[in-house]
């Protein structure tokens, strides 16, 4: 009976992972398919990858997407880190008030955020383009960054900072050498989360990108009239693999840190 249950557990896990990863696997396989059709296997080819690197439209939107994702993730995380440290020192009532205010943009539909940002940019007479796109992404990323950093800040022992000062650190040193390392896992999480959210976004980008730039999501969506170009499969595969590698690196690093820590503590 126990063995049967064990087997059932394993079967369930396989099902879950199949469900999660089957679509990506199909995509990866199709990116090497010589035939354009999704129904037939026409042999192995790297043609779509070669064509992808010659396709100016896709490459330029990839560049925009990556730059916006990187810069908006960095800026939003930096702003959120400072905000969280500040929030931690506020009185409880004001803190919860401010926290609820940061929740609202998260539950707000993207459509509302997109349209209102666009209207704001008009009101400010900012021409829609790369800058407005970047600003919009920073804006919607900040609440998510705050939510991933704040728990780490709350977990941190407040006396650490004072202890650092007592031991002769300047406030700047205490921030750099004591507080930041303590909350670093949260900061890294925030960076990864905001980076992916920014790449994911379609609706807000659609309203704020204007006539100059196009993100990958917008470009891919615009191909819907004709068949989706298999180059997109190749591109998605490359993006999936890079994110996977990034995550594996982050995970290896965290587990190494965990293993190292006890040694550092022991005298």
């Amino acid at each position: 009976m126990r063995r049967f249950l064990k087997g059932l557990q394993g079967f369930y896990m396989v099902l879950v992972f199949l469900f999660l990863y089957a679509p990506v696997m199909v995509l990866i396989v199709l990116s090497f398919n010589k035939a354009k059709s999704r129904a037939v296997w026409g042999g192995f080819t790297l043609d779509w990858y070669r064509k992808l690197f010659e396709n100016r439209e896709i490459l330029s939107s990839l560049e925009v997407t990556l730059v916006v994702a990187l810069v908006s993730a960095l800026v939003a995380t930096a702003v959120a880190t400072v905000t969280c440290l500040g929030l931690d020192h506020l009185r409880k009532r004001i803190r919860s008030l401010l926290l609820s205010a940061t929740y609202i943009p998260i539950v707000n539909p993207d459509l509302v955020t997109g349209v209102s940002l666009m209207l704001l940019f008009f009101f400010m007479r900012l021409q829609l383009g790369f800058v407005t796109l970047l600003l919009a992404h920073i804006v919607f990323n900040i609440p998510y960054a705050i939510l991933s950093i704040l728990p780490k800040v709350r977990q941190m022992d407040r006396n650490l900072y004072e202890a650092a000062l007592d031991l002769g650190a300047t406030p700047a040193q205490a921030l750099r050498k004591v507080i930041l390392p303590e909350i670093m896992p949260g900061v890294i999480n925030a960076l990864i989360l905001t980076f992916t959210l920014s790449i994911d976004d379609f609706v807000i980008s659609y309203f704020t990108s204007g006539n100059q730039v196009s993100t990958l999501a917008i470009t891919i969506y615009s191909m819907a009239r004709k068949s989706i170009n298999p180059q997109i499969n190749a591109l998605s595969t490359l993006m999936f693999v890079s994110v996977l590698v990034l995550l594996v690196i982050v995970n290896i690093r965290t587990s190494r840190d965990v293993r190292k820590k006890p040694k550092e503590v022991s005298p």
Partner: protein
Amino acid sequence: MTRIRLAALLTAVLLAAVLLVAATGCGPAKTPLYVYNWGEYIAEDVIALFEEENPDITVKYKTYSDNETMYPQISKSAFDVLFPSDYMVIRLIREGMLAKPDFANLPNAVAHTDPRLAQTRFDPDDQLNAQLFEYAVPYLYCTVGLIYNTDVIDLGGSTDPKDVWGVLFNPEYVDRIGMYDSMRESIGAALNYLGYSLNTMDPAELAEAKALLIRQRQEVRPITGIDELKDKYVSGELVAGIAWSGDYQVCLDKLSEENAPDTNLAYVLPKGSNFAIDFMCIPANAQHKAEAERFIDFMCRPDIALKNAEYVLYSSPNLEVVPQLPEELRNDPSFYPDGETLASLEVFFSNEEIEETYARIWEEVTGN
């Protein structure tokens, strides 16, 4: 460790800043030209060629998925060249959102555009109708016809809408017919089958079309979709369906591949069916009108128009292009219709009254 992390963070910021400058700042004194086109609607090297021949211009190219996605964007940012479909051009003219190009600067457009397209009626309003070709230059057009499996169906070469669309309403092909989930195309096929205009506002004719479509849903149970239909025609799962000529080309493309299933497909354009022309035009708020005219004329140059027609596989209105196309394409009356068929084709009119009437019918059809 922290120091390294901070250094990494700083490097990343610097790198991003450099990239940002590279992305936004372009060479000295190049005029940007903002082109807004459908996705996958231009041959891959055409923009690079244009920039090569016009070193003073750099093209900022952006794409959209349908006319309705494009429309709200163009009042918010100043584009220089647009590619709207016929009814959208009419709407833009009506709303004063287009600028007239100077045809003296468009010698290729004047010399090579098929004059027969100007015979088509684009709007019930005479004045608007007459203005269309003063504002816009045809780019490519596609027709709506029937894609069918020749192993199963034999139409005997008929282009009579009664025979052609009759397939869609034939219960013999239950569960094996494809329809677009698209209001005007579906109602249009029913109206064309019944022998009425695609733009009729006669309540009796519309009621008849509605009843026909409802009966089709019950008796023939068509499969609706867009992209996924193509794979089903290719695999033989569906035997016929309504199709844009461009989609038929995609199916042929898929069939020509190695290991493709052994299916024989054909496409037929019935008389009086629908065709849609996409035009190039310049919006009223364009900042670089002279450059836009150069771009439009470049697109009408026979060698460039040929590249685009061969890449997109829609029908070209360029008279110089047609003789250079592969034989099976230029001789196919479904892609390059003869004068009589071309004259019988209709574009969809669009104004509030028509849209509302058709939307109400469509709601009742899909609700059944």
